[in-house]
């Protein structure tokens, strides 16, 4: 193993980064690791666009009057913030970056089952992204990311069809990624890598992929129907022509609820890997954690109308969906308990990835608990369509999914880039993100219960103090996100070269070089050990006996 030198650049072994140079070698690559980096760059770009919109929203909300931007502009801001963040950042993020990079390596394969389809996925994402960019630059959309009918089909004159088609194209990127993962996990596990030896990251991505495959086509067809109705003035969703606006809501939420599980499950997989590594022990209750991912995926398809409790559905339908929503909460709670139990009698290190994992558990717990409030019919009537809901889903998406993503980026950064990130800065960033996040979103729970509706650019005076607190938090949060951008880039040139396994972590990916070679493994691994074999990894070395794994 080469020791890191701190003066000159060490002589580099051939790896996936330096095997070929030039833009074409990247744009026509079929190497899952390069595609992961292509995604990393593109989704980071969209993250900052969505984040910029968020900044403008929070600035407008500093004052009760609508005085920063025009009403139509504000309506476009929150719509584009939602569409970009959901479809072009959160849904791809972990699967397309960390999943693409790690799934083949974790199971001992050379690549995904369909490398060219993988590249196609990225191109579809880019085409969808460019369409969305064009749409935003030429006027944008103002329907809210949920584009309810008949407003979106018969009243607004913004570019619904173009935005819808952009999402449609990006949706196929998501479907193909999911398809690729499922086939890879079924068919390309190395000899000895049984289902019960798979890292829980793989289980989480498997469950996510099922949702992507089964759910995304439904929003695709919904978008087609909206586009056709809008263009040809049909009446599928328009009551004036005999249609039903609630049919749209059912079709929309049938995908969009499972979509939130697409956004959170991979992050849970990341957190599981990090906790096992930094507590130096096997996850408590492996089977339960694995099956809870599948349970979330299945139950996640059964709860969509909890977004419609006041929309005009029958009381009996509401009862059914409320009950099922409580059922889906159980597997998530189980995961939190298992992570906590893993720390018991562990040997815990506080490196940056672990700090992000702690942050995830804390914030996801709060977000998940507030989901219980929303699932309660009597309370939902009061808080639905208010800032309470906004706070709830940001706790899960940002406090949960995004923190998991950042933690995963830090954890696997040495593997991906061959460099170490600066640890102190990383810990500082984690802290800033955690504090900024709570300051931004906790006041919004109160605002929601007070009755401040969502999608409002002007509000009664008595809501101002809480809004100001929230905006203050948002600026802190923004700083917290900029820091990793900066030091990750810095590390690519100036960071210490990373050893193959800087964390002494379990998992086949750590048996490759840092960065890995194009085909990952010199010889196909044969797995004869269980996952998370930290007892073996940490066993004191006996003279002359090499570490078996």
């Amino acid at each position: 193993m080469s020791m890191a030198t701190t003066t000159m650049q060490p002589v580099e072994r051939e790896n996936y980064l330096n095997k070929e140079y030039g833009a074409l070698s990247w744009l026509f690559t079929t190497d899952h690791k390069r595609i992961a980096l292509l995604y990393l760059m593109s989704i980071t770009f969209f993250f900052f666009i969505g984040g910029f919109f968020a900044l403008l929203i929070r600035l407008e909300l500093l004052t009760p009057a609508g005085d920063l931007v025009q009403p139509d502009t504000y309506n476009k801001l929150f719509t584009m913030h939602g569409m970009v963040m959901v479809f072009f950042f959160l849904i791809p993020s972990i699967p397309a970056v960390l999943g693409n990079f790690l799934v083949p390596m974790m199971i001992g394969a050379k690549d995904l089952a369909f490398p060219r389809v993988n590249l196609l996925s990225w191109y579809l994402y880019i085409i969808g992204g460019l369409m969305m960019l064009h749409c935003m630059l030429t006027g944008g959309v103002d329907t809210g990311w949920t584009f309810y009918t008949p407003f979106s089909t018969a009243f607004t004159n913004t570019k619904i069809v173009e935005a819808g088609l952009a999402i449609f194209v990006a949706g196929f990127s998501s479907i193909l990624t999911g398809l690729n993962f499922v086939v890879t996990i079924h068919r390309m596990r190395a000899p000895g890598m049984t289902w019960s030896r798979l890292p829980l990251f793989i289980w989480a991505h498997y469950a996510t992929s099922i949702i992507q495959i089964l759910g995304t086509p439904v929003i695709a067809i919904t978008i087609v129907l909206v586009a056709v109705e809008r263009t040809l003035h049909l009446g599928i969703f328009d009551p004036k022509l005999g249609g039903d606006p609630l049919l749209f809501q059912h079709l929309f939420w049938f995908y969009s609820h499972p979509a939130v599980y697409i956004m959170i499950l991979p992050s849970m997989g990341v957190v599981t890997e990090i906790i096992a590594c930094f507590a130096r022990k096997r996850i408590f209750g492996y089977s339960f954690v694995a099956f809870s991912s599948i349970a979330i995926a299945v139950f996640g398809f059964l709860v969509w109308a909890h977004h419609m409790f006041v929309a005009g559905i029958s009381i009996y339908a509401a009862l059914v969906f409320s009950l099922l929503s409580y059922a889906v909460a159980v597997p998530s709670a189980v995961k939190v308990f298992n992570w906590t139990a893993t720390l018991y009698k562990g040997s815990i290190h506080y490196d940056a990835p672990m700090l992000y994992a702690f942050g995830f558990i804390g914030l996801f717990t709060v977000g998940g608990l507030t989901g219980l409030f929303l699932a309660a019919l009597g309370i939902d009537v009061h808080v639905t369509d208010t800032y309470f809901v906004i706070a709830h889903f940001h706790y899960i998406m940002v406090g949960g999914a995004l923190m998991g993503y950042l933690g995963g980026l830090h954890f696997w950064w040495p593997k991906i880039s061959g460099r170490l990130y600066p640890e102190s800065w990383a810990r500082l960033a984690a802290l800033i993100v955690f504090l900024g996040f709570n300051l931004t979103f906790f006041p919004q729970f109160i605002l929601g219960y007070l009755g401040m509706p969502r999608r409002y650019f002007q509000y009664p005076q008595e809501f101002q103090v809480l809004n100001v607190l929230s905006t203050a938090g948002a600026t802190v949060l923004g700083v917290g996100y900029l820091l990793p951008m900066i030091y990750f880039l810095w590390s690519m040139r100036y960071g210490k070269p990373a050893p193959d396994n800087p964390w002494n972590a379990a998992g086949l990916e750590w048996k490759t070089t840092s960065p890995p070679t194009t085909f990952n493994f010199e010889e196909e691994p044969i797995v004869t050990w269980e996952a998370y074999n930290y007892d073996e990894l940490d066993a004191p070395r006996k003279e002359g006996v090499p570490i078996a794994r």
Partner: protein
Amino acid sequence: MLDSTLVGLHHEEEHHPELLHHFADAQQQRDSASLGMWIFLGTEVMFFGGLFCAYLIYRRWYFGDFGAASKSINAALGATNTAVLICSSLTVVLAVWAAQTARRSLLIGSLVITMLLGLTFLGIKGVEYKEKFDEHHVPGASFSFDHVPIPGHPDQYANPRHAQIFFSLYFIMTGLHALHMIIGLGLFAWLLFMAWKGRFTPEYHTPIEIGGLYWHFVDIVWIYLFPLLYLIDRHP
């Protein structure tokens, strides 16, 4: 060190020219392709599923109006198309068998006939669409559906707004199906080209098999569409 006879089986096995580098062996490649196509067809089921769902809901709500509208589309042409597609699935099965048993001429012939049947389907569809256009049943500005009696209730006329919903769904569903047919034809054109170049052998004809799966799926969607759209409330 790991036992090298167990590892790297692909070094020992003959490197089939069609075997892609990242697969351990041809069996893994075949199984992956097959599973991949089945999953893709699953996504297509969900895609069409949304439309079927919308259709079934409106059919229940506006049964009479939908019956009147359904009666006005040409069931004879629809039935002919059903027969055409079923035959084309037969020729697809024939093509797969031909590939499996190294019958190159039969393979090429079957692929050609399949495509001809597909084109026939699209042609008949075109005739149907023209009929609808001529009768002003295409949704939009020139749509009209006045004084059309509801089947079984000769004194009651269908509500044109509801009939327009039927036709909207009719055109979207059959149009989407036709689009998949066109894609299928493109796929088969490519398969034909490869077959003509002799790329398929009994050991390697995966594209024919998964192309066949796709074609069968398009056929099955039609087998659901036909009775749902054409045969509501029809009495001899």
